[in-house]
């Protein structure tokens, strides 16, 4: 049953010829066949292409290629439907892209393939990554593998649910305000939002370009370090990618946290926090102390304004980025008597309610007469939020918090009130505004029903090694990451 393995376990078995890439891929496909009618993580997958990639990997292994050369050789990895894979469909969870197929590979897909991965499948998401539950997908809602009456989180809900239910060994998603960390927390896997600019965004459909970042979902911290290692690095095709060397993230993994200083943000441990979430996070902080870390309180006084700031900046950027969906060059066009009528009809028919809401809000905050009052002011508050973090990081190496205020909520619970849905991202959003690194990992479960609780680690810009160090030490000490969902 290779689909149940993590990346390190599978590559070790492949190296010892105890299993084959084909067997691993087939095992994932069989498992998808068994459980995905309930989980609904995949929008589509190309079985023939996946098995052909697996056979190529097996040939390379037979020819003596090692995992030292290609660390993901023969490992099945799936993609959020926002990343381009050449020749495969891409819909961003939307109707407006019609029968679009990507003409090229995203840089992260090139890197995964160069590392030998079997890249397969399109994972469900909130339309254009706008949402926290996958309920904004134009196709269907993904279910939480721990309780199918509940949402998996979003927007990368398919990516989280697929890993949590063992349908693939790892996946990629994108995080603009928490879209990797929040679903990772709610489904019980490890989700990483790297530092802004660490990973090339070339081939990622843009939502809010100053906030978007690609990251991985995995079953262990070591796998998270490996995936981040592979997808990181400067790319001339993304002018915002950082031209900084990528350290050896796996070398950072250890079991001892002595000398590490952790901060607890007093603003994050406040009202609205579910008591079971609070207890689990408090216990995790004590555990980190027992591993040798020191803990002190830090203050992020402007974080209370993060959600408001985010919904101005992100929607403003989205209103510009999504202007390209006009029915001219790709997608499902609705005819009109002139171009303007064609644009309006195409966009009116093609976008769902949340996307319309955000584009219109973004258009408004950028419009003449309101720009200074909304957009410029939000950019200034963003500076204050970022400065809070930089100041805190003078005292501590990382900040610990809950990832979400509650465990997974029920389907339909927040769909009628967009603002309530937005507030479920209250702990994750400021990380994107500040451009720092972040990670969510399992730190316990609610009692009844049994649902995962996520611990968020926030690190300095390019502080990924510290996050992997803490995450690995914590998971070795607790074993929460070994718990599997009923549908896994």
């Amino acid at each position, binding site marked *: 049953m290779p689909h149940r393995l993590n990346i390190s376990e599978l590559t070790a078995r492949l190296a010892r010829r105890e299993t084959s890439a084909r067997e691993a891929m087939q095992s994932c496909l069989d498992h998808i066949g068994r459980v995905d009618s309930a989980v609904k993580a995949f929008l589509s997958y190309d079985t023939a292409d996946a098995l052909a990639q697996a056979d190529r990997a097996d040939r390379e292994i037979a020819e003596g290629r090692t995992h030292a050369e290609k660390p993901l050789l023969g490992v099945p990895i799936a993609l959020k439907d926002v990343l381009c894979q050449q020749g495969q469909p891409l819909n961003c969870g939307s109707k407006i892209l019609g*029968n679009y197929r990507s003409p090229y590979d995203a840089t992260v897909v090139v890197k995964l393939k160069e590392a030998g991965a079997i890249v397969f499948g399109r994972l469900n998401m909130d339309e254009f990554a706008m949402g926290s539950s996958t309920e904004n997908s134009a196709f269907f809602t993904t279910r939480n593998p721990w309780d199918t009456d509940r949402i998996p989180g979003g927007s990368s809900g398919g990516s989280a649910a697929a890993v949590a239910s063992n349908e693939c060994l790892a996946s990629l998603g994108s995080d603009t305000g928490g879209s990797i960390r929040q679903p990772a927390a709610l489904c019980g896997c490890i989700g990483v939002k790297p530092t802004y600019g660490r990973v090339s965004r070339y081939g990622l459909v843009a939502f809010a370009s100053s906030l978007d970042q690609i990251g991985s979902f995995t079953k262990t911290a070591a796998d998270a370090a490996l995936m981040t290692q592979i997808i990181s690095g400067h790319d001339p095709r993304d002018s915002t990618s950082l031209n900084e060397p990528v350290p050896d993230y796996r070398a950072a993994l250890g079991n001892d946290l002595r000398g590490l200083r952790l901060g607890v943000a007093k603003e994050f441990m406040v009202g609205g926090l579910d008591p079971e979430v609070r207890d689990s996070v408090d216990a995790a902080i004590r555990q980190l102390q027992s591993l040798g870390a020191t803990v002190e309180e830090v203050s992020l006084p402007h974080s209370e304004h993060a959600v408001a700031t985010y919904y101005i900046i992100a929607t403003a950027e989205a209103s510009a980025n999504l*202007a390209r969906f006009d029915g001219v060059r*790709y997608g499902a066009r609705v005819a009109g008597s002139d171009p303007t009528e064609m644009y309006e009809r195409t966009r009116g028919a093609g976008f769902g309610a949340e996307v319309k809401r955000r584009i219109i809000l973004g258009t*408004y905050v950028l419009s003449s007469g309101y720009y200074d009052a909304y957009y410029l002011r939000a950019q200034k508050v963003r500076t204050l939020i970022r400065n809070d973090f930089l100041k805190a990081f003078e005292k501590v190496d990382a900040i610990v918090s809950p990832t979400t205020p509650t465990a997974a909520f029920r389907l339909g619970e927040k769909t009628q009130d967009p603002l309530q849905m937005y507030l479920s991202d209250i702990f994750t959003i400021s990380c994107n505004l500040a451009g720092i690194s972040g990670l969510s990992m399992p730190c316990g479960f609610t009692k009844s029903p049994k649902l995962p609780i996520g611990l968020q680690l926030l690190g300095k810009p390019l502080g990924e090694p510290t996050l992997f160090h803490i995450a690995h030490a914590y998971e070795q000490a607790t074993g929460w990451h070994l718990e599997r969902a009923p549908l896994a």
Partner: protein
Amino acid sequence: MSAEKFDIHYVANLARIALTPEEEQRLGSQLGNILGYVEQLRAVDVSGVEPTSHAFPLVNVVRADVRQPGLETEEALRNAPLKANGLFMVPKIVE
């Protein structure tokens, strides 16, 4: 800006999105609530604060002015809803 001055019809037109009357009604009231929520930013003292447009401002990222391979015309047109003679077709723009 108070929510009642938010003209959904006007802004949807700027955004080139056709809305049904029901959508105008529903989105208009939801956006009113959201705008009410973001009003809190007015209370923040931002005097003397520089705006942040990117977490790491990289300016003047340039590359050598050398011809790069790009998508072939046929590839670029593959997803076009309507095409002819190697071009995207759109409704008539000028009479």
